[in-house]
């Protein structure tokens, strides 16, 4: 049953109460170090509260919409495989994991890679089966002291996915995490929690794809922690195509060891309010991180990408390119932080954010933040925000290409710098299709 109250304090109390209910059901397990961590995260969430726009990190992203209506924390669902048909991604190959309302659903999922290549389990199961492994990674990377949503997720972490890739292994098939929020009957809030540990000299491709079913409101607050051992390589894609009533707040926290390579693309196609935090700590020499992003809000959608690259060791490299196409009355935020620690000599860090604003009602806020404490480094950053190039548009029209098509062609070309980075073909095809459809509207 959907609770009838709806306001900031009520929602907070509801979440705190959910924690206590959860705890009561745990019996002896509440004494574990894992649960003690959750308890301390809950305290922190209680202390911090939901951020307001007075908070520097949330200046342009107002979460007040979350308190306008009540969310149900009950994650049960009547959803079956047939209900997923409209959300199908054609030709999707590989390991396909369904996470519905934050819960791992093995009966919907399909794992085809052998266990010798990768172990994919539910987070809930891993807490019981391998507490030492969880203990050595859980909340070690994603800081919950400063970020209320990460604290909330940590406190309520019950389920999600754990992916472990052994040393010297290439996972041949990609792993697709499909997050479905079943908002057909009620407003749903979910707190999925994932952990991905990639062994030494191992390689894996993971995509997270978010969809909503139904027309009620949804709130997904996800945290994914990724640990790359030395010489590990990972492709990581986050794809959001949710509804006009979807709130999405997510943190992907990456810890990289020596000579590891992390390639990411974050593509936000639809959602009411989206906040992506991508935080990477280059905690090893010769570690490299590539971060690409594309966001295309329209209507009254809001998309906020916060990235942080922390160059902690010498000789590391980061490259970042985020691109936005903003229409109607949508708003966008890009905040890119780069830290270069005193030890991180010979750092190379490049950041760029380019935006096309299609309508006078749309707006974009960009904020690069470079904090450099080493002296022998190469860093550059640049942001541009402008209209679609009129001269290019006229050039194309003067050759016989109609205005709308010329516009789509230009914007499609603009998106290619990001989409061409995606190495899982079915995901790329899917994105090309949705992007094209969106541009033709």
């Amino acid at each position: 049953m959907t609770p009838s109250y709806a306001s900031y304090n009520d929602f907070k109390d509801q979440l705190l109460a959910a924690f206590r209910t959860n705890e009561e059901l745990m019996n002896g397990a509440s004494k574990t170090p894992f649960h003690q961590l959750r308890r301390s995260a809950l305290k922190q969430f209680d202390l911090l509260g939901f951020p307001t726009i007075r908070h520097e990190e949330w200046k342009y992203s107002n979460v007040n919409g979350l308190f306008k209506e009540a969310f149900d924390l009950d994650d049960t669902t009547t959803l079956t495989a047939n209900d997923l048909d409209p959300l199908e991604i054609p030709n999707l190959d590989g390991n396909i994991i369904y996470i519905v309302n934050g819960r791992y659903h093995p009966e919907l999922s399909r794992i085809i890679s052998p266990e010798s290549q990768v172990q994919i389990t539910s987070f809930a199961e891993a807490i019981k089966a391998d507490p030492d492994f969880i203990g050595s990674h859980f909340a070690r990377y994603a800081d919950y002291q400063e970020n209320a949503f990460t604290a909330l997720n940590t406190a309520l972490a019950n389920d999600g996915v754990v992916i472990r890739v052994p040393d010297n292994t290439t996972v041949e098939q990609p792993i697709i995490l499909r997050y479905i929020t079943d908002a057909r009957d009620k407003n749903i809030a979910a707190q999925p929690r994932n952990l991905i540990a990639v062994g030494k000299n191992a390689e894996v491709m993971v995509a997270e794809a978010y969809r909503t079913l139904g027309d009620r409101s949804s709130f997904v607050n996800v945290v994914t922690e990724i640990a790359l051992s030395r010489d590990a390589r990972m492709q990581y894609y986050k794809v959001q195509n949710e509804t006009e009533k979807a709130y999405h707040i997510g943190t992907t926290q990456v810890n990289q060891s020596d000579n590891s390579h992390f390639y990411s693309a974050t593509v936000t196609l639809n959602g009411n309010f989206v906040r992506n935090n991508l935080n990477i700590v280059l905690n090893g020499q010769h570690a490299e991180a590539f971060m690409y992003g594309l966001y295309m809000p329209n209507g009254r959608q809001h998309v906020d990408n916060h990235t942080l690259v922390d160059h902690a060791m010498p000789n590391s490299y980061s490259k970042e390119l985020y691109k936005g196409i903003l229409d109607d009355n949508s708003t966008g935020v890009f905040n890119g932080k780069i830290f270069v620690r005193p030890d991180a000599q010979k750092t190379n860090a490049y950041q760029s954010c380019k935006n096309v604003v299609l309508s006078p009602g749309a707006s974009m806020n960009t904020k690069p933040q470079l904090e450099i404490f080493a002296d022998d480094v190469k860093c550059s950053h640049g942001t541009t925000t402008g209209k679609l190039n009129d001269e290019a548009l006229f050039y194309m029209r003067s050759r016989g290409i109609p205005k709308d098509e010329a516009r789509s062609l230009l914007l499609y070309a603009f998106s290619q710098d990001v989409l061409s980075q995606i190495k899982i073909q079915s995901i790329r095809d899917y994105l090309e299709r949705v992007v094209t459809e969106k541009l033709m509207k």
Partner: protein
Amino acid sequence: MLSISNLQAFIGKKQILKGLDLEIKAGEVHAIMGPNGAGKSTLASVLAGRAEYEVTGGSVLFEGKDLLELAPEERAAEGIFLAFQYPVEIPGVSTTNFLKTALNEIRKHRGQESLDAVQFLKLMKEKMKLVNIDQSLLSRSLNEGFSGGEKKRNEIFQMAMLEPKLAILDETDSGLDIDALRIVADGVNQLRSPERATIVVTHYQRLLDYIVPDYVHVLYNGRIVKSGPKELAMELEEKGYDWLKAEAI
């Protein structure tokens, strides 16, 4: 083919064309010359339909149709082609893909079937020879990182592909060395035909040594003040444009 009468156009609050008249028949090559600021590029832009210019009076008929009523893409489909003075760089769109889209849009407008990939490639290979343009250039992003000469050759290549009825070359000679100029002019000359007219807009007589016009017009202060045979270009080269200013007073 093209009939311009009393054409008046503004950019912002400034009037550039102040009652321009010009008649062009199929098969003819007309050179428009004149000092900087006379309105040469404005005329080219107005004919192609650039939005920044506001036409406040006069008329332009192209094969009997009111050109000024048409969107730029409709003008292209009717057979107007503007070779840009400064071709635009378009990252992410290859010349090949761009031209295929353009050509098939124009064909659609004319009620012709679209060309498939094989037919298109065959046509492209044939036209590439005209301006000595390389395949590798055409698969790159349109004009991006092209040299000045490559950009202008690409314009003439596009013209060859789209086979317009009326081609307008806006300062095509600017920024070209003599070899590039010769290649571009050769391309234009090979495209001359009894059905096609060409307007060559230029500041210098040099280009007209290679593309020999049937008529030369002098544009000054928004009007055509003098017209004559090709020898007029030689006279302008000798005397410069100062005498015009004296005459205009």
